[in-house]
């Protein structure tokens, strides 16, 4: 089993943190994982991608994910600018921050509204990165919510941690898709 996930967002939206926390949560579940971004483009607003791999065995590969099993689109405006779906494996799944979607084999969650609703806003930017992880782990069914919450609390403290915990729990419940989600 090797699950490859690619995250798309913009610099400042916590794309790298999302990939890293997913890896940390997988580690807490006793799985092997690795997470890294393509560095050099980490300017606020510029398109960013970050990668996460999860496996039952140790992971040797270090090159970027070119054929993901899952694509997570943290910022849907990128769909018009770059091609987050490139190289998606046949049967690969898209999880997009959107009010709705027509993309095939996709799941969607209005993470931006959710972030505003719970007050998870930083410098005017709704922080949707970890909220999207709540949706992703539901769709993936590999990483547990307990581990994700633990990973969030290890990385953040106080209010930021608790808002994100609240966010991932709501995201887990609210994510919708063309394909019926197992309860």
């Amino acid at each position, binding site marked *: 089993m090797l699950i490859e996930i690619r995250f798309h967002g913009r610099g400042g939206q916590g794309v790298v943190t999302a990939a890293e926390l997913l890896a940390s949560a997988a580690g807490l579940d006793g799985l092997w*994982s*690795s997470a890294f971004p393509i560095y050099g483009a980490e300017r606020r607003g510029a398109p960013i991608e970050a990668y996460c791999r999860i496996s039952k065995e140790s992971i*040797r*590969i*270090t090159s970027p994910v*070119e054929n993901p099993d899952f694509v997570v689109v943290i910022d849907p405006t990128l769909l018009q600018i770059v091609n987050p779906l490139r190289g998606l494996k046949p049967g690969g799944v898209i999880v997009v921050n959107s009010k709705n979607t027509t993309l095939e084999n996709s799941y969607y969650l209005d993470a931006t509204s959710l972030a505003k609703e719970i007050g998870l806003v930083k410098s005017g930017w709704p922080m949707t990165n970890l909220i999207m992880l709540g949706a992703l782990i539901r769709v993936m069914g590999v990483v547990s919510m307990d581990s994700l919450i633990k990973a969030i609390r290890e990385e953040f403290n106080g209010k930021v941690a608790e808002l994100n915990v609240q966010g991932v729990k709501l995201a887990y419940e609210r994510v919708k898709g063309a394909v019926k989600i197992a309860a």
Partner: protein
Amino acid sequence: MRKVMSANEAVANAVKLARVGVVGIYPITPQTTVIEKLAEMKAEGEIDADIVRVESEHAAMGVTLGAGAAGVRSFTATGSQGLLYMHEMVWWASGSRVPLVMMVGTRAVGAPWNIWNENTDFMSERDSGWIMAFASNPQEAFDLVLQGFRISEDERVFLPMMVGMDGFILTHMKTNVYLPSQEEVDAFLPPRRQPYVIDPEAPIGMGNIFPPVEYMKLRHSIHSAIQSAESVIKEIGKDYEKISPFNNYRTLNVKYRMEDADYALVLMGAWAGDAMEAIDELREKGINIGMLRIRYLRPWAESEIKELENVKGILVMDRATSLGRGGPLYLEVKATVRNQVKGVVTGLGGVLLNKEDFKRIILKFLKEAKEERSDGVEWYYPAEVEKVELRNPKDVE
């Protein structure tokens, strides 16, 4: 304890567990998160070390070497321009025979500016008289830094040790790392030993002028100490198994599917992981290729490399160049074996290779090897590099 962390965090944890007393350090991408983690540990009261923020890498090594000479276990970390700026003091550390450990997060060297991975900075210290190891994953980064203190402080060695790791690809890649407990590390790592300690009560001169005959003898002593380190590293690697689940430190370098290999790929660093994936796929097609991953550049384990003489062809891949000549690893291998050796220089300045690139490089080499013309150096361009148009001043006008 197994926890997901980057190689830089793993290195900071090794420094903590080794109970390092002084860290003289200056930030540089991609090493900066090592300092950040150490500073955080200091702020949280997890470490007692004095973290000395200096004005340059030259001073960083000055502080680290000075603390080491005064009898304190010391550590620093740098890379790229920083390592080059430190270069003079790097030699001063080995010439002084003061044990210490330095992490090098590798990165290309300017001009022009480039923050991405390349190993030329690390390779350019190969004549400096240090013990030089290169990690291929964050776990190994941790293990080598921790073992580094014991290797460096061994009386048969008494030389500083640097541990290289690919910038960003390892330094910033988070993955599962096993950390032994403090009690286990205390049992593994004896109190600091060193050949002499500077002490105002019993003054000595350190590095004072040596006449030609004594200087030459001293250089030979460092040469012998590096060679003697080979058996020390194996001994310490075996002992490391008492505190770690990893048992692949009994040799300096690491073989992969070499038992029945007709051809060998030689390289070092993180891309060994991708190369192994490519080798596995080629093996399924009946291509008998194996890999020797170089983990120690110094000492150069000649007997381990010489085993390559049993294969039909050798391919060496360098993420570094001696410009106008070839990859440094290629030149080292070529100087060790009698076979034909092909060198490939690629992945410079952050250029990334995937499994398909490795397969392409290997298949081309096999074709040449069968025609007995697998010699010399080739620059391999992944597709994205191939597209780059050259610039000259006329275009700029």
